[in-house]
């Protein structure tokens, strides 16, 4: 009895230790951003001070600098605009495609679906060189339209994949019933399948939006003017003046841009993971 009791409590300690250590390690950079945001410069740059706490009164100077003297707000706006447009394009192309591949085209539709999913694996770092020329040829260089053109190339494949799984879970009889009740094949899709699929579509919206905000390579390659930047590139590239880093403003910018995205993403994460796990889980 003693031994199992001892075992149990040591298991619990191990369990707790693993959790605490990992949580601290993984979340630490964000704590670090938070505390840097409000630190006075003197405090921040005094090596002798304990860096984990505020050694002087918190200050809002860095936030003021960020919002008033940089293009941060503009970048946020650009990102949001690109996000909305890319989400619309993705929905417009991915929803019908996913539906067609699950319901209208039989077995080879499934195969094509897997093929499309594989294009999600094609990384930006493979295509950014030729795409930079394509973007230049189309006259889209240095505008947000360059990334609007290219981002759907990774949002559409994964969205199709997620939606296919979602459509598969809708009972076929519902569509049959709708057709017997007076809708066309396409009408059953628009008036029956889409309204039932709102939660799946919402997942795609959030997913696409977060992917857009996370992208770095294309935005870095296609866009150089400061005013046209996306937030993910603007912060690390343009908040660095010469070699001087405005660390506090930089950290504030990271934190403010990260948290809402992280929060949204987190809400829908289980669905994305279900998409990643392909067929490994039955």
């Amino acid at each position, binding site marked *: 009895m003693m031994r199992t009791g001892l075992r149990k409590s040591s298991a619990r300690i191990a369990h707790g230790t693993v959790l605490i250590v990992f949580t601290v390690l993984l979340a630490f950079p964000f704590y670090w951003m938070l505390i840097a945001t409000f630190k006075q410069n003197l405090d921040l740059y005094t090596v002798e001070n304990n860096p984990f706490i505020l050694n002087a009164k918190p200050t809002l100077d860095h936030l003021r600098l960020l919002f008033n003297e940089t293009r941060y707000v503009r970048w946020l706006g650009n990102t949001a605009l690109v996000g909305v447009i890319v989400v619309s394009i993705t929905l417009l192309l991915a929803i019908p495609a996913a539906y067609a591949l699950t319901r209208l085209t039989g077995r080879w539709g499934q195969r094509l679906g897997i093929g499309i999913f594989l294009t999600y694996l094609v990384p930006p770092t493979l295509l950014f060189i030729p795409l930079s020329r394509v973007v230049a040829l189309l006259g889209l260089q240095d505008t947000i339209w360059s990334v609007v053109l290219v981002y759907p190339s990774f949002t559409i494949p994964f969205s199709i994949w997620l939606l296919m799984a979602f459509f598969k879970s809708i009972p076929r*009889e*519902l569509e*049959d*019933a*709708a*057709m*017997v009740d*007076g809708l066309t094949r396409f009408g059953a899709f628009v008036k029956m399948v889409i309204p039932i699929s709102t939660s799946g579509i919402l997942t795609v919206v959030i997913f696409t939006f977060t992917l857009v905000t996370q992208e770095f390579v294309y935005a870095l390659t296609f866009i150089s003017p400061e005013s046209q930047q996306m937030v993910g590139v603007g912060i690390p590239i343009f908040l660095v003046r010469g070699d001087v880093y405005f660390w506090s403003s930089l950290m504030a910018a990271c934190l403010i841009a990260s948290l809402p995205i992280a929060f949204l993403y987190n809400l829908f994460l289980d669905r994305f993971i279900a998409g990643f796990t392909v067929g490994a889980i039955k």
Partner: protein
Amino acid sequence: MAVVETRHLTKIFKQGELGAVNNVNLKTREGEFLVFLGPSGSGKTTLLRMIAGLEVPTAGEILIGGQVVNHLAPRERRIAMVFQSYALYPHLSVYKNIAFPLKAQKVKKELHKEKVEWAASLLGISALLQRKPRELSGGERQRVALARAIVREPSVFLLDEPLSNLDAKLRLSAREELERFHRRIGTTTIYVTHDQVEAMAMGDRIVVLNNGVVHHFGTPKEVYDEPADTFVATFLGSPPMNLIENDNVIVGFRPEHFRLSETLDEAKVNFKFRVENVEYLGAEYILSGSLLGGRFEGKEVIARLLLGHTYEAGATYDFAVPERHLKFFDRSTEKRVEARALTWQ
């Protein structure tokens, strides 16, 4: 109201494979309750779905009300269908579910309320109109599905195993309700089931299907008493018909016709029956065992007997079958043939 007819109707899903439905010819009568009965995979649902327009036939014609409808979409066939899962639209209230066919068929908006209320009152669900499908019991769901089906007054009703998702007790009352409903509406109805009791109880006529082929098309009495072949003979009836081979024919007799020899005073065939297992079912006995002696030694048969005598496992009895209850089937084609004289010893 209309008559449904199929001519040489065939459906082949995969080239080179046996058809799911093969050359089916049948014709309903006006206002008839027709049942498609068969085991799973027999093609009965495919047949129904072709009539509905949800599957495209590989060959053959479908006629509704005398018109070929092959080229018409489901919505243009003036049919209503009730699905196995009822297929109630989960995001719509009961009212909107029932109104859905009206909306989809572009019936004038002013008429919706009146028609929905008519259908709802017919099925006694007027109080449920504001609920969502997930808040309904199984029986209520069936009624909503039926209301949705009748609301636009279709010429044909198609029902695909609508009772199979209900528990046994509910199934009985839902069945009675369906029968009442059909009597009141009088619309031609095609009903798909794998349950022979449902088929016998509800059908004006029954189409017995297996492997996509019609084995028998007749009234419940015909199908049960005069089965067209051994498949029909064994598929209907519980326990199924006993079959024994004799010369170049197969002879069948129903368990309820296999009785103590002394109780039968008519032309009969006698057997020695060794009882191996006795099941007491309250109103009757089911005896299973084997025949003894002669050329049928060891052949397993079942008898179904009313109470009144006691039987013991392990004992041997003198049993017999009245000659008029013997059914004869050709040994190679398994089709029904004329009764003939045989030697039984």
